[in-house]
């Protein structure tokens, strides 16, 4: 058994030369995307650029060299979430003076649009040709810009968006890794249908009220981004709800269950995104001949996407976010990334690499601005006492 596992891991261990060769395209692409054609002249920005470039490429090198995906993905994913929150809040404070979003700012279309709003906007957009969000159609943090990112990333990764793009997911991913073993081990399977119920509820309510119900009442991430200025009892109740949801779903439950509970049990975009997995070219598959039914993958999956039933069918559920945690956890390498249409159990490394390039590229590009910004602001904070 141990020998089998050792043999299996040996398949993925690459020579240094081959690893460097495979990393070269990513080095070039990340360099191109980080610099965007110009290298900064001031010291802080240049330092941030070099540090970010090295950080990204070391992680990708380790992914390719060791054959482990989630171990290194999670480092960048958590970094993205932390840097996003730090960068976003400090920008809000610099521009608005606080994290509160006033009604005046909403009337002026000053609320940044995030991908979680997308499912709610589709029916009203189709029927009224308007977007039910107080943001801007074009420009920075714009609605059209976010739609393009969502379409592109969904085409490339399907629900992989939730583990390689979402700048909120890293928060719960981080909290879910605090304890070595979960305190809550079993959860009723019925809870995994909750995101679909939330999705249906908020889509219908948003269409009927022409307002983004999830943002107004349920989004836990308002606690770490921006919240509506408290000017009435209704807004106070909304604030209490989203702070409670943040503490419950993003902090406490991920710690206790070692799962991404907001993503797996609540997020309406996640539920919506599951549909894109059906049409996406990448998937996680199981070689049933190799599987020894140790259930390590079931315990590892952060979004409740594997159970005995799905293993019996040789695939994971459509809610899979392609984080690679189950692939890393499997001692037999029975679980693997697969390209649809290709033979099932050959060229596993090739399939994984074909997935890793677009997926890591998405994560690196979306992280690049926030990581660099956070480095510059941290330097400013240390040297001048302010983030500006």
């Amino acid at each position: 058994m141990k020998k089998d596992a050792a043999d299996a891991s040996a398949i993925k261990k690459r020579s240094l030369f081959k690893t460097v060769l495979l990393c070269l395209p990513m080095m070039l692409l990340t360099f191109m995307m980080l610099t965007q054609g110009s290298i900064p002249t001031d010291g802080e920005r240049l330092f941030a650029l070099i540090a970010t470039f090295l950080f990204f490429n070391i992680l990708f090198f380790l992914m390719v060299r060791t054959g482990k995906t989630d171990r290194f993905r999670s480092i960048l994913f958590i970094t993205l979430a932390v840097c996003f929150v730090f960068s976003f809040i400090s920008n809000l404070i610099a521009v608005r003076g606080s994290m509160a979003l006033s009604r005046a700012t909403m009337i002026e279309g000053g609320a940044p649009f995030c991908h979680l709003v997308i499912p709610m906007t589709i029916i009203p957009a189709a029927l009224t040709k308007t977007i039910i969000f107080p943001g801007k159609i074009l420009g920075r943090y714009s609605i059209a810009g976010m739609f393009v990112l969502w379409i592109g990333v969904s085409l490339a990764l399907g629900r992989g968006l939730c583990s390689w793009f979402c700048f909120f997911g890293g928060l719960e991913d981080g909290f879910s890794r605090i304890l070595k073993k979960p305190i809550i081990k079993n959860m009723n399977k019925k809870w995994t249908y909750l995101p679909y119920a939330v999705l249906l509820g908020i889509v219908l309510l948003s269409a009927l009220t022409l307002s983004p119900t999830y943002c107004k009442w349920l989004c836990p991430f308002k606690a770490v981004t921006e919240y509506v200025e408290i000017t009435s009892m209704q807004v106070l109740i909304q604030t209490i709800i989203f702070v409670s949801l943040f503490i419950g779903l993003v902090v406490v439950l991920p710690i206790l269950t070692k799962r991404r509970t907001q993503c797996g049990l609540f997020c309406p975009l996640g539920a919506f995104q599951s549909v894109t997995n059906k049409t996406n070219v990448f998937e996680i598959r199981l070689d049933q001949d190799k599987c020894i039914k140790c259930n390590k993958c079931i315990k590892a999956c952060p979004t409740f996407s594997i159970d005995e039933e799905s293993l019996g069918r040789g695939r994971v559920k459509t809610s899979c976010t392609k984080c690679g945690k189950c692939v890393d956890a499997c001692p037999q390498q029975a679980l693997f990334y697969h390209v649809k249409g290709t033979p099932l159990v050959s060229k596993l490394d090739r399939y994984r690499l074909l997935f890793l390039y677009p997926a890591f590229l998405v994560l690196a590009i979306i992280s690049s601005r926030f990581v660099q910004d956070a480095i510059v602001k941290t330097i400013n904070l240390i040297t001048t006492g302010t983030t500006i």
Partner: protein
Amino acid sequence: MKTLKGILGYSWAFLTIFIVLATFIGNDYFSGKLASATDIKISPWFSGGEIIKTIDHGAYKTYIHRPVFDALIGERRKGFIQLNWEPYAGLPPVVQETIDYNDDNRADFLIILNTQTGDTTLSANCSTVLSTERSYRLKKGWAVRVILKK
């Protein structure tokens, strides 16, 4: 068939790298195209709706938006009309405006705004004008929403 499926699978997988690059590099281009192709706008419940009339007072202007009653299908019974006064620099301490929002050549309401405090006074001349929401201090000037019913 298996070979064809394999070729298609590999091609699609390889293409995703270019999709990702195009998505990020061409984001401004594609979002501009998306916005113009769909002609999508921000819901008037947030933006206030299109400006239908501008009154030039010399030092400042009054922008009157269209009455908003929009629903998913048809119209709602309750809506609002938004008025903006810009720019700050040209605004007198008190502005007052008589509005005929339904074009029946009769003043429907008179609104008075204190530009120092944002306090508003509304005198309704018809039963469809209900009240004012609070006033909003925007980047360029003041905005007030007057609640209407059908």
